[in-house]
């Protein structure tokens, strides 16, 4: 049976570190945390309406004239949640892999050091 100390000192911190890194990789491995913005969400909602009126009916025609290319394809509005590696300030952007992993790493280090200490003592 895992002792409470081992659970709190080793397993829990290791789980937090793995979870933070995993969340970063799962959300796009960005440097800084970004959260959905209501203004960006509002802009996104107009995209399909504008597409329907202006962007869709421009295929290359029978005469071989090319449709507008780069200008027709707008820059995508990325308004998804991304968990970043680094804290970016003192707002919600401070939540990052490092803000979770550093305290967990300290707790893990303490837990491992104490475990090594007990192991050494029990061998004597």
């Amino acid at each position: 049976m895992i002792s409470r100390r081992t659970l709190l000192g080793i397993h829990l911190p290791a789980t937090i570190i793995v979870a933070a890194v995993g969340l970063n990789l799962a959300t796009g491995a960005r440097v800084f945390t970004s959260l959905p913005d209501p203004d960006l969400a509002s802009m996104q909602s107009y995209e399909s309406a504008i597409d329907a009126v202006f962007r869709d009916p421009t295929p290359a025609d029978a005469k071989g004239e090319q449709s507008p290319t780069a200008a027709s394809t707008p820059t995508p509005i990325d308004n998804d949640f991304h968990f970043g590696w680094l804290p970016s300030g003192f707002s919600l952007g401070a939540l990052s892999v490092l803000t979770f992993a550093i305290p967990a790493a300290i707790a893990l280090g303490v837990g491992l050091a104490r475990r090594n200490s007990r192991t050494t003592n029990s061998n004597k």
Partner: protein
Amino acid sequence: MCLAEGGDLATHSGGTHMPQRPTPRLAQASIFGLRSLALAAGLLLTLPALAQPKATEPAKTDKPATAPSAAAATIAPSGKSLIIPDALKAKGTVYHALPGGGRQASFLSDAPFEKITGHSNAILGFAIAGPDADPANLQGGEWLLPINSLRTGNSDRDSHLLKPEWLDAAKFPHLRFRLTGVQNITPLTGVKDPALRTSTATLVGEMTIKGVTKSITIPNATIRLRAKSTATAALADGDLLFISCKFQLTLSDFGIKHTQITGAKKVSNTIEIDTQLLLATVAPEDQKPRETPAKPTDKPADKPAANPASKPSGVPIVKPPTAKP
């Protein structure tokens, strides 16, 4: 097996247990390890402060900044449009930009360390369309982008953009583009929808950022016009004009120089601008209120690729000509 004092169940082979003290060497190693971890944690947790952009010396440009060739248009009292000079109004049909709706402009900074995109839907402005036979031959136009309307998905970054070392919103609250002419107009024929008049063209104008004005030429712009209909009424009242173009700007040309550009490589010196500007013959103040369009449940094209190419292809790099003394 025997019970120790206090009722705890304990097993021991006999004799009394004396608590074992860790050896001095092991204790020192543990303390050293803990101190190192604490020091590393302290350094890393100060990253928010270190991430704050450091102000650099004001940029000294070798070439004097050019003054705008015409007085800047003023913002109407409503705050939703610009006051258009009568001389320009007489040249053709006026189309007004519609702030507060869909995205109107985006920027992309693709640096080695980070890729940043930002968007704004708060552009004020107008465009003067050409005659009925050649409406894409725009006779003029001007657009103001409020810097505090830029959204990057990170509120800290949005506030950094306003600082003096970046765009200095306190002194220069807007980015300004004034259209001076249109060249190489090529109407597209064979478009599926006959109500949509589409042309490609080269836009010529002046861009003013942070008080510095540069002439720029934007090739491969697309100008689309559509008369009012039930389809257009979903977007706005009146006839609609849609201008889309992509071009690149160099921040250092406008006096924006920062260690995050040259040193940390978190911001690219070359920024790609993507304009998707919807304008209507009915002014924003006179537009009927509309509900925000429902967000589609599936977005097949909006999500960026997992590993997008670092540089977009086919986007022209607009180099401003040598500044006139």
